[in-house]
């Protein structure tokens, strides 16, 4: 930990990249972009357009807003996203979907794929092509038909502002170490794209019904939903040797904070050391693959009274090389840049803090 050249103010940062900036796309916004027959099936009238979600987006029975105590800003337009950028002093935002994180729990893989394409075209048309330079998008895929997901990656990877591929990670079953996803990894490799995993609490009812049933409140459910999702997917990818097979693919885990990372990687090292027979294709410890191939977005930051504990956690996974600041705005647990900055600025040198706030994201996503 350097102490000589600490940054004293957030305004000293060269660049701030928000590596998880949600837009709140609505189902009816996607209807004009849907391929047939879905556009005609679900977009027949205005009234029905609003119900386009009915067949498969989960009906949200979660008590998210606490009866209005928590307020969600609507970020369904480029103007609203630009306003958020300016408010928080963000130079670049990596735009992430909301509804389209639910695609893994769809029953109809054709419809899920059509929605992913519609969302991607909507994103390009309404955000990326006319929006400010700082807008960066990712190709959303449905994991249900990996061959079609690979086609979608090939279709859009050349768009100058599509800088990665994102998948909703809650509900992907079997998890992402399975061989059925090889076409997706091959497309990522061919197109030199990072792979971004983002959980979704709204998918939990389908994905993990017993956990959902056992949690008596949204707060209980949300405590476990994101880290559990990411632990499940990361463990599968490590166990089945995804980073051994595809060492050039950068894999990014969003919105689960940082506490689960050292826990999971070192716990899995233990399993590897004691049960190596079950991981015969690994050539090094899981934690080493994590440090080399995996990246993480910061939100939601834990807030212990002593910030040194946060710094220690970050050090445990070589976080100054692997951590990317993120807001998760406009969700109720979003972080501001100041929150992370104040937590780490006394513990890491200027160069390391710059990497967390933009350098790592710039490298992984090719942002200039």
């Amino acid at each position, binding site marked *: 930990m350097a102490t000589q050249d600490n940054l004293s103010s957030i305004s000293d940062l060269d660049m701030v990249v928000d590596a998880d900036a949600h837009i709140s796309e609505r189902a009816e916004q996607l209807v004009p972009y849907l391929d047939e027959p879905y556009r005609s099936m679900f977009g027949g009238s205005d009234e029905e357009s609003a119900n386009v979600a009915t067949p498969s987006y989960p009906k949200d029975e979660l008590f998210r807003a606490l009866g209005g105590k928590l307020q969600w800003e609507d970020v369904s337009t480029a103007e609203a996203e630009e306003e958020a950028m300016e408010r928080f002093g963000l130079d670049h935002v990596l735009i992430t979907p909301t509804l389209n994180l639910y695609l893994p729990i769809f029953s109809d893989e054709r419809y899920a794929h059509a929605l992913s394409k519609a969302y991607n075209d909507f994103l390009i048309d309404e955000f990326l092509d006319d929006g400010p330079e700082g807008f960066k998008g990712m190709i959303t895929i449905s994991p249900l038909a990996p061959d079609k997901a690979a086609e979608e990656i090939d279709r859009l990877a050349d768009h100058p502002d599509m800088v990665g591929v994102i998948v909703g990670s809650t509900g992907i079953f079997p998890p992402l170490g399975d061989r059925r996803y*090889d076409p997706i990894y091959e497309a990522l490799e061919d197109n030199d794209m990072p792979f971004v995993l983002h959980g979704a609490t709204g998918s939990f009812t389908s994905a993990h019904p017993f956990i959902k049933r056992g949690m008596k409140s949204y707060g209980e459910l949300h405590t476990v939903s994101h880290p559990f999702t990411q632990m499940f997917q990361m463990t599968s990818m490590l166990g089945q*040797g995804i980073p*051994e*097979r595809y060492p050039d693919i950068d894999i990014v885990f969003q919105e689960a904070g940082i506490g689960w990372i050292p826990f999971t990687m070192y716990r899995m090292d233990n399993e*590897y*050391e*004691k*049960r*190596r*027979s*079950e991981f*015969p*294709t*690994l*050539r090094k*410890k899981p934690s080493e693959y994590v440090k080399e191939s995996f990246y993480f977005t910061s939100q939601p930051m834990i807030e212990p009274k002593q910030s040194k504990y946060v710094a220690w956690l970050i050090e445990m996974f070589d976080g100054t090389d692997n951590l990317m600041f993120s807001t998760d705005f406009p969700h109720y647990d979003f972080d501001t840049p100041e929150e992370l900055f104040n937590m780490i600025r006394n513990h890491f040198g200027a160069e390391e803090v710059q990497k967390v706030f933009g350098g790592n994201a710039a490298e992984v996503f090719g942002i200039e």
Partner: protein
Amino acid sequence: MSANANRHQLCAVEDLDPGERLLKTISDREIGVFNVDGEFHAVANYCVHAGGPICEGRLSGKVTGEAGEWERDWECEGEILSCPWHGWEFDIDSGEFLADSQYQLITYETEIEAGTVYVVLGSA
């Protein structure tokens, strides 16, 4: 092979067939002697992980495979010693821990002279 004070008799060659082992205490050290295809290996009965009785563990093979390939194999039968406490696997010949070569079995040099197997302490 000259006799020296560190050299201790373990057993007669004919007393330990290939695949067999025995445990002896020499100078307060528990030492396992293994006949692996006619090669004699002497190993401290102390796992470098947590001090478990490694020489009482299973001597067998290892599962191998290439990432992305379908096949899995069983190789090196009779050459992989695993600790009964936590399953750490070591190559009895190289002494290497299979999951991290920074860890090594504690091994001793063996010598055979006139049908007798000797261990040379201080050679670990």
